[in-house]
């Protein structure tokens, strides 16, 4: 399900990792030192080197993707042969170019450039054809595609790749690890994130083949297997936890809501896998509680899980009791009825079901009673309507209970067994009793007395239960 969300979000599918082949990577790796030398003048030493290698690896990953591979490689190769500026590697990474230029100036820029570079690498697949014919110079001129960046920013910001880039010393490893990230589905990236989170800061070797190797086991994993993948990723582990913490404050906002597996270690929060899993669980639970809040009427004012659960429990209990009462009603009502009307009834059932649908959902169980009285004005006599309206005043008000108790003393014992939503039950029993009367009056059955006794004894038998 989560994977579907990822795909719908337009993230390139997982073919990234599967189609990653060694050949384009080796090409790029061979070219990377060329690029490094060429770009030396652009960067300060540490940033430049690491960024360059990161660039190359990132570039190579989109190259290996399954879409438009040839055109991509073509585009990537031409820039390499062109002048020493870093415009080449990828037309997408034009954001990187300008970002690269500023990269030396500001670590904050590094962050942003990292993000944009990820956009570049990520948007590479979909934008290859678009950017194909464009001139490299033009691409270098424009910083990056803001729309693409904006579109992809939320998703990318939630990936660990950005945070890894923004780090300082472990950049190379993180970046190299990052290039498979954009193409991955949720569980994988989350797994990547969770796995290194459990580790302390580790230095990173992580050339791209390493990360590509890790991709494949990552693909098959799911949420529960993050610990298993940790062993795979051990060598690639970097100080992602630290970086994520540092960047959590910067990139906290756009966590995709559907991506419930993505857990970001927020600033000041524990980052071990246990607490992460706990947090995921808690978020899931609170999400479901919100859904339940919409289902259960009258729960909007209630805050807090305990109270909500109480409300839910009461509501489920009341619904179950209503089913019992209605089945009892059906059992008594149908004794005297002929079932030839079933066909007519089925039609009517659907129609009145439709009419019932809307008013039934408003807000509390008073709606049940109120609506029932609305529906059956010709049905019962004024007696039932009177009792119904009494019930519909405030079914949850226990003050009504003693009032109704006095009306029907034989139901008293039953009322004691009813903890919550009592008035509906009483009202139903009343209608049950009085229906016996009404029925018999309308049909002039000789079973008048029998029915009455039957319904009374039914209520007594309920008490015995």
């Amino acid at each position, binding site marked *: 399900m989560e994977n579907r969300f990822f795909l719908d979000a337009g993230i390139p599918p997982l073919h990234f990792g599967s189609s990653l082949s060694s050949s384009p990577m080796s090409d790029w790796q061979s070219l990377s030192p060329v690029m490094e030398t060429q770009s030396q003048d652009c960067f300060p030493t540490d940033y430049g080197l690491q960024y360059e290698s990161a660039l190359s690896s990132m570039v190579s990953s989109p190259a290996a993707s399954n879409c438009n591979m040839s055109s991509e490689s073509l585009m990537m190769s031409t820039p390499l042969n062109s002048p020493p500026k870093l415009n080449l590697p990828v037309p997408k990474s034009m954001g990187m170019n300008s970002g690269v230029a500023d990269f030396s100036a500001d670590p904050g820029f590094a962050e942003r450039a990292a993000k944009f570079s990820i956009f570049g690498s990520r948007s590479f697949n979909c934008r290859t054809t678009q950017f194909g014919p464009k001139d490299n110079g033009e691409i270098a001129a424009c910083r990056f595609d803001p729309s693409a960046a904006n579109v992809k920013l939320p998703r990318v910001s939630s990936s660990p790749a950005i945070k890894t880039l923004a780090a300082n010393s472990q950049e190379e490893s993180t970046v190299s690890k990052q290039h498979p990230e954009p193409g991955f589905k949720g569980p994988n990236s989350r797994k990547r994130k969770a796995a290194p989170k459990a580790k302390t800061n580790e230095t990173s070797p992580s050339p791209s083949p390493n990360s590509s190797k890790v991709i494949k086991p990552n693909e098959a994993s799911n949420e529960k297997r993050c610990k298993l993948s940790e062993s795979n990723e051990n060598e690639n582990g970097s100080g992602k936890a630290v970086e994520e913490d540092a960047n959590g404050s910067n990139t906290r906002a756009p966590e995709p809501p559907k991506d419930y597996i993505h857990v970001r270690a927020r600033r000041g929060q524990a980052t071990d896998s246990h607490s992460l899993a*706990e947090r995921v*669980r*808690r978020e*899931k*639970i609170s999400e*479901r*509680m919100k*859904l*339940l809040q919409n*289902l*259960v009427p009258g729960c909007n004012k209630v805050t807090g*899980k*305990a109270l909500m*659960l109480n409300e*839910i*429990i009461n*509501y*489920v209990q009341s*619904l*179950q009791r*209503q*089913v*019992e009462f*209605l*089945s*009892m009603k*059906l*059992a*008594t*009502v*149908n*004794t*005297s*009825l002929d*079932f030839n009307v*079933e066909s007519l*009834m*089925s039609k*009517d*059932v*659907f*129609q*009145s*079901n439709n009419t*019932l*649908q809307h008013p*039934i*959902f408003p807000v509390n169980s008073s709606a049940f009673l109120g609506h*029932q009285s609305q529906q*059956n004005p*010709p*049905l019962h006599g004024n007696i039932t309507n009177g009792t119904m309206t009494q019930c519909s005043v405030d079914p949850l008000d226990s003050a009504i209970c003693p009032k109704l108790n006095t009306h029907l003393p034989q139901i008293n014992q039953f009322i004691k067994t009813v903890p919550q939503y009592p008035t509906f039950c009483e009202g139903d029993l009343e209608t049950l009793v009085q229906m016996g009367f009404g*029925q018999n009056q309308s049909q002039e059955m000789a*079973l008048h007395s*029998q029915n009455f*006794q*039957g319904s009374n*004894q*039914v209520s007594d*038998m309920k008490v015995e239960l």
Partner: protein
Amino acid sequence: MDLQNLNPSSLKSRFTARFLRALTEINAPKTISSSSPREIFQRYRRIKVAADKSMAYSVRSRRIWSRATLWRLRTRSRSRRLVSFGRRASVKTRTTASHGKENKEHHGAVLGVQAEELRELVPGGEAMDLCNLLDETAHYIKCLTTQVQVMRTIANLYSIE
């Protein structure tokens, strides 16, 4: 009298069809004279079982609670001779229940009591962790409301006739 709102494959229509069929079966052999309290009580039980069963069948096995209900009904009918009439024949799997409790305590013992109650209410809830339990509860509530609506309408229609 518009039948256009009718969705023949909706939960409500499925349940209604099944329940009406069950009702005809229950009421068919009865004659007017059979209105003794015991008969009524037996019929009540049968109708209740029919309601639960038809709702569970309408949901098929897509939900844990429906599967649990169907399984419970089947075992109950089988073990009816052995078990006394009023007692529930539900089987609690201790291992899964303890696992559920583990999750509860790990998450926070605050919701432990209510979660236990909810587990008792929702059929098949003993073996679910809180997350799935809430999911099942939501679906169960939806089905229960449908059930109540349909049964109430039927009862009203019957009492009109």
